[in-house]
């Protein structure tokens, strides 16, 4: 493993008028690492994600991928630098089939149509979606759409997969399968940064966890450490309840 972290976020801040949605957050993701970001609702997690993926401009701070500063760069170039991102509200390209959707991602690394198609197939195998390859992307179930999002991101030049609440809306069986898929992808060399509410998933997946509340980091460590942290419990449950 090289010494440069795959993703380095330094003291990133986002102000909306007088309100700091994110106020000075730093994090590092190493190659092969799975890192989780958790925190109560409205804590600024998705804002932070948008700042990292480039869908929102920072007010201050830096974002670097593989040592290169991408703070001024838009989401498309960041995607080509290695940051693949999924969205909370899953949006496949409705006019294309599942396979073609993944090809759109694959074209980033394979210019030729046939090669892109082959790569897309292989990616669909990795996420176990080959049985739906030729249907229109519109007709997928929610769980399969999420797989498709991941596949499309992974088919490109993604080295760090950013998952925004990928478990939302999945039943326990689907969630377990998703966890297996993510672990498999990590074993194949992918790094993961995810936002999650489901703490069971966080425990199962994350090597390292960062906790955010009111746009500020309040704790960091392994899942076990963090979930036992008094401040974290207070943030989620409120001070009175936590005191019980």
């Amino acid at each position, binding site marked *: 493993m090289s010494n440069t972290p795959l993703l380095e976020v330094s003291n990133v801040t986002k102000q909306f008028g007088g309100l700091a949605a994110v106020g000075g957050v730093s994090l590092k993701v190493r190659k092969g690492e799975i890192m989780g970001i958790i925190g109560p609702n409205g804590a600024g997690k998705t804002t932070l994600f948008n700042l990292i*993926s480039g*869908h929102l401009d920072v007010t201050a701070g830096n974002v670097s991928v593989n040592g290169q500063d991408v703070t001024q760069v*838009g*989401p*498309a*170039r960041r*995607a*080509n630098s290695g940051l*693949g*991102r*999924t*969205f909370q509200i899953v*949006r*496949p*390209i*409705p*006019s*294309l089939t599942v*396979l*073609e959707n993944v*090809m*759109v*991602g694959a*074209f*980033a690394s394979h*210019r030729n*149509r*046939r090669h*892109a*198609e*082959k790569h897309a*197939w292989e990616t669909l*195998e990795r996420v176990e979606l*080959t*049985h739906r*390859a*030729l249907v229109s992307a519109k007709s997928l179930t929610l769980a399969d759409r999420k797989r498709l999002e991941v596949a*499309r*991101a992974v088919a*490109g*030049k993604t080295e760090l997969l950013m998952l925004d609440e990928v478990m939302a809306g999945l039943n326990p069986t689907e969630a377990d399968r998703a966890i297996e898929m993510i672990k498999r992808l990590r074993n194949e060399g992918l790094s993961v940064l995810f936002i999650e509410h489901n703490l069971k998933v966080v425990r199962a997946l994350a090597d390292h966890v960062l906790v955010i509340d009111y746009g500020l980091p309040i704790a960091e460590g392994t899942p076990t450490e963090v979930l036992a942290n008094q401040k974290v419990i207070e943030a989620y449950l409120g001070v009175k309840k936590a005191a019980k």
Partner: protein
Amino acid sequence: MTLDLENTSQKTTLKSPLKSWGGFVVGMLILGIISKLISADGYYNSLANAGFLFGGLATAWNILGGYCGQFSFGHAVFVGIGAYSVALTKTDHNWGTIPGIILGIMISIAVAMAISWPLFRLRGSFFAIGTLAFSEVALSLAMYFTWTHGALGVQIPFERLPIVDQKVWLIVFFVYLVFCMGTSLFLIRGRIGYYMISVRDDEATAAASGINPLTIKTIAFAISAALTSLGGSLYVLYLGNLDPRAFLSTLEIGAFIPLLALIGGLGTVVGPLLGALFLEPGQTYLRGQFAGSLAGISQGTVGIILILAALYFRHGFWGAIQGLARRLQRISKGASK
């Protein structure tokens, strides 16, 4: 179900080049033969000429409009640029035909790229308004400057027209159509086609996949403008004269060409041609039948068709045909069970 492309006996799951291009060549051959046959009659010959020309123009528009989802109501600008480039260089400076055409194409590409950045930042309706405004400006500038011959337009001296035989024009327009449709097919099968569709359907998702929407839209715009300019050049050589109010008209051209693509089928290779073959001769027919007795009937009918198409017929002729084909497929599959 795995795909092994190393094993050459197994085909790709997408439409193979043979099927797509093969179908295209066969279709064009059939069209060519039919048009050769009907060209015996001068009236049908000129209908076919107009149909093929506007089919090509509509196909060119469709690349930006149907595939990339950016509806330009100002494409008359590029028709005008192509027309003026050829007409002025030929009439005032005795240029050859081809250099004039190439000049038009280059200017059109430059203009398209120049107005891309400010216009593509706008949401759909405003992009259309912007292109419309641009087209109207072009019209007023063309009527204003003396070097464009102002409101009089350009009359190309008869002896300088490269082609006067209607039958030869039929071949020229047919080749133009095939070229536009071939470009369309080539783009849609390749990387750019997929990118354009992604940008059309969901820009944010496209960006997250590493696609720069502005780049893709600009490329589509440039290609569309170039092909349109070529059509405009051919059109002015065909007519022999350039009336700015006809060539740069929003209502006759700028809003008419998108309508052809809409009626035939947006975002398909064949659709725009179908729309043109239906409406161009249709309009000429109406004008011929009612000239004098009911002014405005042909354009008024176009208006009604436009409204009905927008309300009930969004997928156009080709869309209806495809829908029919799907239903037949389902019926036959059900029957064979």
